[in-house]
Structures are given as structure tokens and as C-alpha cells.
């Protein structure tokens, strides 16, 4: 299977090329080069970074709750972050973006913590129950958010965060996403610990891991990643679930080697959705998150019904 990595890299580079080239105007003169620099380059980078961030957030939360069918939008993380963002918009609409992001991340952290308490009580034998529990939990938070937005006439505003799109991304409006890179490095440094988390509390502690601390670190990373993406481009469901699962079926579960591929995979999926959203009804655009929610749902269903990968060592 080793040959697949370069193939995927080439595919990713091709995607980047298309994304840079694709647009309502072609780049021929100096002025167009300026357009290229402030719009297309940032847009492509933003899609890659957002996808990488969400995929990493997904794999971490999967290890923490020991269930590969969850992701930040199925653990109440995204919804609570959105609730936090809505409240900030209501009470302090002029707050700087860093402040908004911090509060959204804190709200997301609180929401994920609540989910964790639920997860500890959900029966292990039926792994498909946990995403349902998470969905209902996220649904309750989302209902509260919608209710507040409805009674304050912010519903259409909420719709803007609900589905991420990249048409508004320009130089100066996405740079926070580069923090995803820093978090990815941090995650890589603790990859072994996160893998051990996935063995469960008892086994992890027996291996000398400070379980509580590691789990808390993982959750902070998940919340910050989710909030970063939410505040800069909007919510993007399914990426955190799909990218790690595809990589896991292909390469197994050892995060040290897989994290870079999961990040690239997530970035590639989001960029591909953005490109498709741009060409589908050219020159109009369909939000990338919506494009992916169609493909993502289909892949999720495939993951549910496909037999578990019996990947041997020989292949």
C-alpha cells in the first residue's frame, strides 16, 4: 500500500492548482496577480487549514471517548461554541476577533466536557449509540441557540455560521487559521499519549499516563481547533469523522505516523468540496460545507455498513 501516499500527494497538489486557477477572472496581468494574492491564495490556504484542523479535532475526540463514530459536531463542541459566539454577538458585538474566538473555544470546551460525562455512562457494547446520544445532546444545545437567535432576530445570522463557505475569505480575514498549524505540531508531539488514551482509562493509567491531564489537553485542543474554524469560516460537519476513519481503515490506528496524513486528508476533502461548490453552478457558489455534507453523509453511511477492514500486515 505504500505507493498510495505519493499518489495522494499528487492529487492534493492538483487540487491546489485547480483551486488557485479557478475563478471568475483569469490571472493574466499584474493587477490580476494582486487578486491572486489577496483572494485565491488565502482561500486555498484557508480551506486546507480548516480541513486539517477539523480532521485533527475529530481524531482526538475519537480517541478520548474511544469511539470512532463521533466528531466535534456530534459531541456538542461546535454547537456550544456557536452558542457562545451568539451570546458574544448579543452582549458585546464589538469584541475583537481574538476575544470572540477565546469565548467560543471556552464554550466549546464546556460543551465537550458535558458530552464526556454522558459518554462515560453510555454502554460500550453498542458503539453506534454514542453518536446518537451526542446528536441529541448537540441538538438540545442547538435548539437553545436557535431559540435565542429566533427571539432576538439573529436566525439568518446563525445560518451564516452553520454552513462554512470560503467565498468571503480574503487576505486579512483568515490568518487566525494558521494557528491550526501550531496546534498540529503540539498534537504531533503528544501523539503517543493520545493513542494511549484510546486504550481506555485503566490501561492508560497502568501505562503511567496522567490520564486526566492528557484528556484535558486533548479536549482543549479539540475545542480550540473547532472554535478557530467556526469563527473564521463557519461550521463544517463530517470532516472530523470522515478523514480519520478513512485513514484508519487504510493505515491502522497509530497516531504518530497517521496524524500528518489525517491532516492532509481533511484539508484535501475540504478543498475538494470548495472546488466542487465553485464549479457546480458556476459562476454562483454553493457553500463547501453543504457540498461536503452530501458526500460526507454518503461516506458515513458506507462506514456504517462496510465490513470492518481486516487489514493484514502483508498488504
Amino acid at each position: 500500500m505504500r505507493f498510495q501516499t505519493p499518489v495522494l500527494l499528487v492529487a492534493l497538489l492538483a487540487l491546489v492548482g485547480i483551486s488557485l486557477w479557478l475563478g471568475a477572472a483569469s490571472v493574466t496581468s499584474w493587477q490580476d496577480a494582486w487578486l491572486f494574492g489577496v483572494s485565491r491564495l488565502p482561500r486555498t490556504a484557508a480551506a486546507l487549514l480548516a480541513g486539517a484542523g477539523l480532521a485533527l479535532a475529530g481524531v482526538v475526540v475519537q480517541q478520548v471517548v474511544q469511539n470512532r463514530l463521533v466528531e466535534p459536531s456530534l459531541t456538542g463542541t461546535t454547537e456550544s461554541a456557536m452558542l457562545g459566539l451568539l451570546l458574544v454577538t448579543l452582549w458585546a458585538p464589538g469584541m475583537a476577533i481574538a476575544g470572540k474566538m477565546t469565548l467560543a473555544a471556552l464554550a466549546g470546551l464546556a460543551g465537550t466536557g458535558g458530552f464526556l460525562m454522558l459518554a462515560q455512562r453510555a454502554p460500550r457494547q453498542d458503539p453506534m449509540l454514542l453518536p446518537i446520544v451526542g446528536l441529541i445532546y448537540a441538538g438540545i444545545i442547538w435548539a437553545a441557540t436557535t431559540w435565542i437567535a429566533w427571539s432576538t432576530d439573529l436566525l439568518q445570522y446563525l445560518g451564516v455560521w452553520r454552513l462554512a463557505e470560503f467565498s468571503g475569505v480574503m487576505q486579512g480575514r483568515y490568518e487566525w487559521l494558521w494557528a491550526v498549524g501550531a496546534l498540529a505540531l503540539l498534537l504531533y508531539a503528544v501523539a503517543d499519549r493520545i493513542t494511549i488514551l484510546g486504550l481506555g482509562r485503566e490501561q492508560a493509567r497502568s501505562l503511567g499516563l496522567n490520564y486526566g491531564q492528557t484528556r484535558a489537553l486533548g479536549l482543549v485542543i479539540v475545542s480550540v481547533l473547532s472554535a478557530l474554524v467556526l469563527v473564521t469560516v463557519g461550521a463544517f460537519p463530517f470532516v472530523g469523522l470522515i478523514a480519520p476513519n478513512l485513514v484508519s481503515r487504510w493505515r491502522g490506528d497509530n497516531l504518530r505516523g497517521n496524524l500528518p496524513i489525517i491532516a492532509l486528508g481533511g484539508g484535501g476533502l475540504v478543498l475538494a468540496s470548495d472546488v466542487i461548490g465553485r464549479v457546480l453552478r458556476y459562476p454562483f457558489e454553493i457553500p463547501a460545507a453543504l457540498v461536503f455534507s452530501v458526500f460526507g453523509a454518503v461516506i458515513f453511511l458506507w462506514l456504517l455498513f462496510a465490513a470492518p477492514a481486516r487489514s493484514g500486515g502483508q498488504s
Partner: protein
Amino acid sequence: MIRSRLLLLAAGLVLLSAAFLLWKLQEPTGFILSLRGSKLAVLICVGAATGVATILFQTVAMNQLLTPGIVGFDALFVLLQTGLVAILGGVGAALFPPMAQFLMETALLMGAALLLFGGLLRRGAGDVTRVILTGVILGMLLRGLTEVVQRMLDPADFAIVQQAMFASFSRVSTPQIWTGGGVIAVALAVALWQAPALDVAGLGRSTARSLGLAHDRVVLIVLGLVAALVSVSTALVGPLTFLGLLSASLARQVLQTHRHDALIPAAALIGATILVAGQFVFERLLASQSALAVIVEFFGGLLFLFLVFRRKPS
């Protein structure tokens, strides 16, 4: 003991209904009575339907945390509403005959439910959680599609769609009540007739089969009933996710039994009681129109979390 508790529940519902009809009755008496009467009928129909549907669903899923409302019905309903507004425009949708809309929505919801349950259960009825999760994901897909359509609407039309996103008990006409009520009554009768089989089905697929029950067939019948009950009540008033969970859990709590010939009527009575009592309090005592659905959903959601939390950590 079970019998007396059921009678008590029934008596409570009758008293509440009387209070609902007669409280501070003013002139013109006949008109107000018929108005209140049709509203009462809707509340009882929807309460009973969601309560029973949830009991049935929980039994075949062997899980008392679940409610059929999470399986994307609400998403399909909102998509249908949105689609109608998008195709006909806000004014056109308002002029569309309500009975035709009701029948069309019911038919589509039932078709979708049967397709989902029937198609997936061919793989074997042991796999109910997977079916539910599939429905949930399809619901997410529908919600995404709905949002794209909504984005293309102008603000006035958007406001109309927005109304449909929350359940409301005050926009139903008499023929709809008769049709919906009829379907619900038939479904309840079939459910009661199947009650002994349900008792066995609740033991799980392999046990039930070794006891000689045609488990897959019973599950299919039951899910058909669930589809009918949920579609009719959704088409009547709009999406209600957690009301059923509330009434089913209370029914199990009050009766402390697994016998479905008792649980089914109890869940129906409790579901109806919650809605009638809630509407009575909100409309007559607090003079507030729209809050009931939201309050019921909120408490239902909290109950769900409580039910999960009550379990021991694994």
C-alpha cells in the same frame, strides 16, 4: 394496581379536557366550544400518537433512551415546508389547500419512513441501532439541503418557513383532525392487538425467536405503526422530538411493568395529558400562545440527559 393507575390516568385526562373546554367560557359559547374542541382533539391525537410510537420504538430497539423523532422526520417535514414555499412562493404556499398539503406531507413522510425502516431491516432486525443512526444521518443530509433552499429565499418567504420549524397546535382544520385521528386510532388498535407479541419482542431478537416469535415480521409491523403515528402527528402540528420520550418514560415509571397492553394506553394517556395540561396552563392561565412546544421539547431533552446520567458509568 396497574388497572387502577390506568383508570386514574384516564380520569385525570377527562377532567383536564373538561377544564380545557369549559374554563371561563364566554359568548358565543357554541363557536368557542367548537374551536376549543378541535384544538383539544389535536392535542389528544398528537400526545397519544407520539407516546405510543415511542413505546413501540423503544421496545423493538431494546433501548429506553430513544425516540422515533430523532430519525430525521423533523428534517423531512421542514424540507417539505421549505420546498413548498420555494416552489410556490410565500403567498402561493399560504393559498395552497391545507388538506391537500396535509395528505401530501403524510404520504411523503410515511413513504420515507417505510423506505428507511423496511429497506434497512431486510438486513435483519437485530441491527436497529444502525437503522436509527442511518436515519439520523439522512436527517442531517436533509437538513443541509433545506438550508440551501432557505438561503435562496427572500426574507419574507424565509419568515414563513421559520414558522414551520417550530411545532404549533393552532393551525389544524377539522377534516385533517378526522383523517389524522382515524389513522391514529387504527394504529393504536393494531398496537394493542400486537401487545403480547411486543412483550416477547422486547426480550431481544434471539430470545424472542427461540420462543417461537416471528421477530422480524413483528418488528416490521411495529415500525410501520411507528411510521404512521409519527408521520400523522408531524403532519398535523410539526416536529416534536422529545414529547414521546417524556410520555414513554413516565409511563414506564408510573406502571413499573413491561406489559404492553398496559404501557401502550398509559403512554397514550400521559402524552395527551402533558399536551392538554400544558396548553391549558399556557393558553388559559398565562395567555401565551406559542411556548408550549418549546417547553415540552426542553423538558424532554433534559429528561433524556437525566436518563443517560442515571446510568452507572461503565
